[in-house]
């Protein structure tokens, strides 16, 4: 494998040997290490000194089940700290098969609308003015016409070109739709600032991934598949209702943030639930289950049709439904699906954008629940980059600042997602302390707090939450290195044979002799360098806190506040 590098300032491309210290790394471990090694933490994230580092996971490109996740690392314009954003879709498998250990995009071009083409012959830059201002759906259509039907397209929409701080980078899925994304942290704006509109990946004729011990790999991989499929969540529930099945359980548990975190229950939540969504999808001839990359065996994604039975969007997720739903007091699934489609096309993170709207609804310019106005702002303001569109697309923190609103649910500048930290305290610890800003996936304590997976810890009490979050943050950093979908964690947490099978697969592929203790060591190492980077960027303990209103305001129906003491939060990173 090689490190492929493109310098956009002078349009140079290169393939480099992988330094020894990078050999055992992949995914998040590699992206964070390269950012740590090569980028000054004090730079402006949109300057030409910032980099985008794409790295497939260690197991990507193999037949390991659900191993198609890819990481991109950078300095985030949203959090101003180190960022690892993670996506499904077909990019990870393709890059791994082409022998790309990491793709480092650096510098910035004076010409916009560049396309980076990656294939078996290497990488080259092309210019395509016709892509200017196009949404991700059109960009994909044009590039497939030009480079072939089977290419993967990684692209930014107008939001990235406008350098909105909530801009995402889209990745096409198995149906060539731009519905998977490096969503969080505004890295679409970094790509836009560099003048790079799209990356086209063609794995035709690639040499594929080399396995040191094929038989051992096959055996470990078969064993791991069995464990995943044998778990009731990863083997059954995810494919039946998608991630949106969480709407009702969080609502029932009183932890579904509603009306910008005012209550933990949304009266009409069921209209937006996974059960209702699945029924609607079936009635209209969509797909209730869908795999975002080849080799996915969990199928949590979906294809959602409109009321005329025409394709509207795919990958309609719990977080998105919550962000535009309960958080904005909107209970119309068709509108929410439209907003999801719009975010995918224009290239915005659905979580950040939904929360942005909810903060805007705190002003005199807009009421909670006004779905028509959300639609109008998407169609008329964000699409064309008007000043209001630019503000809404720049994240909840910025909206609060511009309009003088102090009820802003963010940590380190990034919006808190779909679990209220007062009623799901373990994930509150993660929001507060993660190197990534508020991010549920960084340490998904919802497992033991709400879902009774990997043990049971009372979500309303503070006891045990710091240890839970720490353990999950370490484990997650390691899983983000493998390329495995994070949803394998449901099985990994409940089945003690799962982690050894992952280690066996890695050893069989690379000829290494890792053991399960090395996994935890790697997780800790990643968190350590990410944290060190953030410290150099100016982050202190004071940044590891939730907004004050979570302490001072009690959340109905349980009337609980976030009562973990500051010094307890500071223990999260003591390891």
């Amino acid at each position, binding site marked *: 494998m090689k490190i492929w590098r493109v310098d956009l300032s002078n349009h140079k491309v290169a393939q480099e040997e992988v330094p020894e210290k990078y050999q055992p790394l992949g995914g998040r471990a590699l992206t964070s290490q390269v950012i740590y090694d090569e980028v000054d933490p004090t730079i402006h994230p949109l300057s030409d000194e910032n980099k985008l580092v794409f790295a497939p996971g260690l197991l990507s490109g193999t037949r390991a089940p659900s191993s198609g996740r890819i990481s991109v690392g950078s300095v985030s314009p949203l959090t101003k700290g180190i960022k690892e954003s993670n996506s499904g879709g077909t990019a990870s498998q393709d890059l791994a098969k082409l022998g790309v250990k990491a793709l480092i995009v650096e510098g910035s071009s004076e010409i916009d609308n560049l396309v980076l083409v990656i294939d078996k012959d290497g990488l080259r830059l092309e210019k395509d003015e016709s892509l200017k201002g196009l949404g991700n759906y059109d960009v994909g259509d044009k590039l497939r016409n030009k480079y072939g039907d089977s290419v993967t397209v990684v692209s930014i929409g107008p939001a990235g070109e406008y350098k909105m701080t909530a801009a995402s980078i889209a990745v096409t899925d198995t149906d060539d739709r731009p519905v998977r994304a490096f969503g969080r942290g505004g890295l679409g704006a970094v790509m836009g600032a560099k003048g790079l509109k799209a990356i086209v990946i063609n794995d035709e004729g690639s040499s594929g991934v080399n396995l040191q011990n094929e038989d051992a790999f096959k055996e470990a991989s078969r064993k791991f598949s069995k464990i995943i499929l044998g778990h009731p969540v990863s083997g059954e529930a995810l494919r039946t209702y998608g991630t949106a099945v969480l709407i009702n359980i969080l609502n029932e548990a009183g932890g579904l943030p509603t009306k910008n975190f005012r209550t933990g229950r949304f009266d009409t939540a069921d209209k937006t639930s996974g059960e209702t969504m699945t029924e609607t999808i079936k009635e209209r001839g969509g797909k209730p289950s869908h795999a975002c990359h080849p080799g996915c065996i969990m199928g949590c994604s979906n294809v959602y049709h409109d009321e005329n039975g025409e394709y509207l969007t795919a990958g309609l997720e719990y977080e998105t439904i919550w962000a535009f739903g309960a958080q904005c007091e909107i209970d119309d699934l068709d509108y929410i699906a439209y907003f999801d489609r719009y975010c995918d096309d224009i290239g915005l993170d659905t979580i950040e954008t939904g929360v942005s709207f909810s903060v805007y609804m705190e002003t005199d310019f807009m009421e909670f629940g006004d779905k028509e106005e959300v639609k109008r702002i998407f169609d008329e303001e964000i699409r064309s980059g008007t000043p209001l569109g630019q503000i809404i697309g720049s994240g909840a923190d910025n909206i609060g600042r511009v309009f003088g609103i102090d009820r802003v649910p963010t940590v380190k500048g990034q919006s808190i997602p779909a679990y209220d930290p007062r009623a799901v305290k373990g994930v509150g610890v993660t929001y507060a302390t993660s190197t990534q800003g508020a991010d549920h996936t960084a340490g998904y304590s919802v497992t033991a707090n709400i879902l009774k997976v990997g043990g049971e810890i009372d979500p*309303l009490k503070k006891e045990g939450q710091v240890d839970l979050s720490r353990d999950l943050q370490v484990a997650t950093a390691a899983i983000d290195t493998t390329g495995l979908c994070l949803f394998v964690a449901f099985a990994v947490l409940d089945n003690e044979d799962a982690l050894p099978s992952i280690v066996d697969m890695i050893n069989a592929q690379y000829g290494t002799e890792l053991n399960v203790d090395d996994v935890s060591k790697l997780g800790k190492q990643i968190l350590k360098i990410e944290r060190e980077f953030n410290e150099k960027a100016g982050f202190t303990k004071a940044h590891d806190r939730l907004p004050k209103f979570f302490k001072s305001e009690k959340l109905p129906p349980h009337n609980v506040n976030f009562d973990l003491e500051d010094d307890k939060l500071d223990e999260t990173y003591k390891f």
Partner: protein
Amino acid sequence: MAKVEIRCFATLRDLLPFEAKNGVYKYETRKTTIEGIVEELSLPKDKLHLILKNGVRVELNEPIKDGDRIGLFPPIGGG
């Protein structure tokens, strides 16, 4: 007699009596525990992974009183 609200979710939804709407069944019962209700409504005990009473996770033998809201879930997950 206690008037209770039984809320079944995901695959359990279809197992409630016909009168239930969107997985919510309100009725009066002489039973005194969630287990009693589950037996009365012939719900499959082995599928009940998460049991919530008024938003708090409880066990099957939890006592009930008038006005309680009971949520029943099979194993589920997402993110």
